[in-house]
C-alpha cells in the first residue's frame, strides 16, 4: 500500500511543473500572436503592393526609373504612370544626408559623455537626450515649418521647402537616438583596453580615438544605421517641411518628396483597390523592404562585432 502511494506521488505531475507548462503555453501563445500579426501585415502589404504590377499592369522598371507619378492616369501604351524615382531619391537623400550630418555630432557628444566628462555628461546631456527622444514628431515638424523653412528661404533661396529642410529636421530627430546608442557602444568597451593603452604611454585622447573608438566601431555603425532607418521611416515631420512635390529634386532647396510623405498625403484620397491606392501600397512595400534591409544590416554588424 505504502509503495503504491509513493509510486503515485512520483508519477503525478507536481504543481510546479504544471505551472511551468502553463507559463510556457502562455508565452508561446503570445509569441505566436506577434508572429501571426507580423506575417499578416507583410502578406497584406505585399499582395497590395504587387497588385500594382500584376493586376494594374504597372511596369516595375517604370516604378524605379521614371519620375512621373500620377497613378490615376495611364501613358500611351496603357501603363499607369507610377514613376517613383523622385520619392526614392528624396527618401534616400534625406536619410543619408541627415545621417552624415548627425554622425559626427553624435560621436563627439558620446565621447564627451563617456570619456571626457562622464559626470557632467550623465547629469546634463543624458536628460537632454532622453527629452529629445520623447518629443513627438509633429512638434519637430512644426518647429521645422516655422523656423527652418523660413530660415532656408531667406538664406538659401527657393521656397524653403525641400531636401535641406527635411535633412535639418531629421538631423535633430535622429541625433539623440544615434548619440545614446553610440554612448552605449563606447561604454561597452572594456576598461582594460583603456588601461592597456594608457600603460603603453598613450594620452587619453590617443586612447579614445585609437582604441576606444576603434573597438566601438560595430556599435557606432549599428547606431548610425538605426538612425537611418528611423529617418527613412519618418513621415509626419518630413512631410511638413519637404514640399511634397513628386518631382526629381533639382537642388537641396527645391520642393521634393519622400516615400512616406507621398503615402501620408495620398492615403485619404484614394479608393481601396484602385490603381492609385495600389500604387501607394507599392511605396509601402518598398518602405517595408528597406526597413527589413536596415534590420538585417544591424544584425550582420552586431554579429561581426561579437566575433572579432
Amino acid at each position, binding site marked *: 500500500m505504502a509503495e503504491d502511494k509513493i509510486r503515485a506521488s512520483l508519477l503525478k505531475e507536481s504543481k510546479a511543473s504544471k505551472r511551468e507548462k502553463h507559463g510556457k503555453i502562455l508565452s508561446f501563445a503570445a509569441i505566436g500572436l506577434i508572429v501571426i500579426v507580423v506575417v499578416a501585415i507583410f502578406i497584406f502589404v505585399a499582395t497590395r503592393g504587387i497588385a500594382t504590377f500584376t493586376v494594374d499592369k504597372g511596369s516595375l522598371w517604370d516604378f524605379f526609373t521614371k519620375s512621373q507619378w500620377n497613378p490615376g492616369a495611364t501613358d500611351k501604351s496603357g501603363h499607369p504612370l507610377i514613376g517613383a524615382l523622385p520619392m526614392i531619391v528624396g527618401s534616400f537623400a534625406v536619410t543619408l544626408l541627415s545621417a552624415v550630418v548627425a554622425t559626427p555630432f553624435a560621436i563627439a557628444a558620446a565621447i564627451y559623455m563617456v570619456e571626457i566628462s562622464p559626470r557632467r555628461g550623465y547629469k546634463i546631456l543624458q536628460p537632454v537626450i532622453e527629452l529629445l527622444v520623447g518629443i513627438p514628431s509633429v512638434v519637430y515638424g512644426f518647429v521645422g515649418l516655422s523656423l527652418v523653412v523660413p530660415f532656408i528661404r531667406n538664406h538659401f533661396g527657393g521656397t524653403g521647402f525641400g531636401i535641406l529642410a527635411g535633412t535639418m529636421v531629421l538631423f535633430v530627430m535622429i541625433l539623440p537616438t544615434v548619440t545614446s546608442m553610440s554612448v552605449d557602444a563606447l561604454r561597452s568597451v*572594456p576598461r*582594460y*583596453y583603456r*588601461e*592597456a*593603452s*594608457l*600603460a*603603453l*604611454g*598613450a*594620452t587619453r585622447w*590617443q586612447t579614445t580615438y*585609437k*582604441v576606444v573608438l*576603434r*573597438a566601438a566601431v560595430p556599435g557606432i555603425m549599428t547606431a548610425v544605421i538605426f538612425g537611418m532607418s528611423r529617418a527613412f521611416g519618418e513621415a509626419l515631420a518630413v512631410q511638413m517641411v519637404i514640399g511634397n512635390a513628386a518631382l526629381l529634386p533639382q537642388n537641396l532647396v527645391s520642393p521634393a518628396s519622400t516615400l512616406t510623405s507621398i503615402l501620408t498625403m495620398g492615403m485619404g484620397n484614394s479608393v481601396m483597390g484602385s490603381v492609385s491606392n495600389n500604387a501607394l501600397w507599392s511605396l509601402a512595400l518598398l518602405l517595408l523592404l528597406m526597413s527589413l534591409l536596415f534590420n538585417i544590416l544591424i544584425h550582420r554588424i552586431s554579429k561581426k562585432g561579437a566575433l*572579432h
Partner: protein
Amino acid sequence: MAMAIEATEPDKTAAPPIIDTEDVHLWYGSNEALKGINLTFKEHEITALIGPSGCGKSTYLRTLNRMNDLIPGVTIKGEVKLKGKDIYAPGNDTVSLRKEVGMVFQQPNPFPFSIYDNVTYGLRLGKQHTREQLDEAVETALRQAAVWEEVKDKLHDSALGLSGGQQQRVCIARVLAVKPDVVLLDEPTSALDPISSSQIESMLVALKKDYTIILVTHNMSQASRISDRTAFFLQGHLVEYDDTKTIFLNPHKKETEDYISGRFG
C-alpha cells in the same frame, strides 16, 4: 607588529638602483592601503612582490608607473624615484613615464586588433616609423616574448583569436616593443594554465639581461623559481625584503616564515 622596516641596503659596489621608493603612502579615500613603503630595485634583476590578497602589493606596483592616478579618490604621498627623478614631481609627464615603465596586467588584454597592430601600438603613438622599422620591431618584440614562432604566419589576424597564454605573451611583446627600462607585471600568469605559465617564466628570466622586471605573484613557487629578490607585503606594510633565497630559506621575520610555509594567506 613591529613597523619600522628597513629595506635591505643595496650593495655599494653595485649599479645604482633604477627605482627607489621612499616612504610611499597611498589612500583609497580614507582607507590607507600602503603605509610607508621603502624599496629599491636594481637594474637587470627580477623582483617578486608577494603577500596575501589585499596586502597592497598590486597597489604598490601600480604606483611605480602612476596607474593609480586613474582611480578617483586616490591620494599618494612619498617619493618614487626612477633613475633619480621623482616621478610624482609636479609637471611630470605620465605619458613618457609609462614609456619607460611598462605594465602587463593579470588578464591578457590585447586590443581587438591584429597581432601586428597590437605590438606596434606603442610605437605608433610617438614619432613616425617606416614600415620596415615597424616590421623589425614586431619581430624583435615577439621573439623576446617567445611567441614569434607561433604567430609569425598570422600577424594580421586578430589577437583575440589566440589562446590565453599566447595573448599574454603578445601583451608582453606589446610592452617590450616600446623599449621600456622597467617592466611591471601584475600576476601575469594567474589566469593561465601551467604550461603557458612556465613559458612566460622562462621568457622573463631570459628578458632579465635587457630589462628590470618587477612581478607581483600569488604563486610562491613562481617567485622562488625566477626572482632574484623578494619583497613580502602584509596589510599595507613591507615586512621583509631580501634575496629570494634568504626569504624562502631563512626569513628573518616570523610573519614571512608563516606565510612562506603556508600557515596563513
